């Protein structure tokens, strides 16, 4: 069951561990236009807290949602500016 978001890009960081999910998310969001949403697929259990914290502490991004799937953690981040 996946939420309905208008996803501009999907970043697959499955297998990567700290700090790469956050670092690669930052790189991918830089390539988006304001308003667009990035989907991040990760297997790192720490990514739930890390991407939440990163989005809260970083200007120009907003965490739209996070979902914990069977094996994959899904993060939806909007670029706001």
């Amino acid at each position, binding site marked *: 069951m996946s939420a309905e978001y208008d996803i501009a890009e999907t970043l697959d960081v499955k297998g*990567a*561990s700290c*700090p790469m999910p956050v670092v690669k*998310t930052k790189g991918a969001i830089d390539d988006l236009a304001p308003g667009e949403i990035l989907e991040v697929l990760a297997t790192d259990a720490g990514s739930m807290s890390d991407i939440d914290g990163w989005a809260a502490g970083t200007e120009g991004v907003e965490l739209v949602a996070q979902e914990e799937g069977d094996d994959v953690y899904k993060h939806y981040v909007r670029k706001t500016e």
Partner: protein
Amino acid sequence: MSTDTPDAPTDDPPSRAELAARVDELEEALAEATADDGDKKMSIIATKGTLDMAYPPLILASTAAAFGYDVTVFHTFWGLEILHEERSKNLKLSSVGNPNMPVPNAVAALPGMDRVTTKMMEKKIADNDTATIEELIETSLEMGVEFQACQMTIDLMGYDEDEFYDGVTTGVGAATALQDMADADIQLLV
């Protein structure tokens, strides 16, 4: 000789214009002092060159860059090994002096044991898909992290500047690091 204090009472109260000028001056100074001088900054001093101690500064540096921090990492003494392109790929784990190692110190001190524990750790890193030191350095450089190699240590170790990763800043010393620390929101010694 008069016992009157000569200064204070003879001064006329400041005029309205003088007060206004003084207020302007203070407001300007306040604005300057509180101005957000742009980006957040982090300064890390990396002093250790074992495999385990190479990770924390690099992980924090790349993560801070992802948060939008201007990051400088000043590498001195054994921390310089992390920036040495060849030596950074062969950083060792010490099996002695670490009570979490599965072998007692008396055994850990035997010749070759550091190689064994390093291999063990390298295998864990590979199995766990943990980024390598080289990957973290390349990623950090791409994200704009400034890696500084302490000139005194370069000279001490007899390294050449071209032995470091491309993009590493050389020719810097403690004063540079201190200036970075003074300007930084976060300062760490690792």
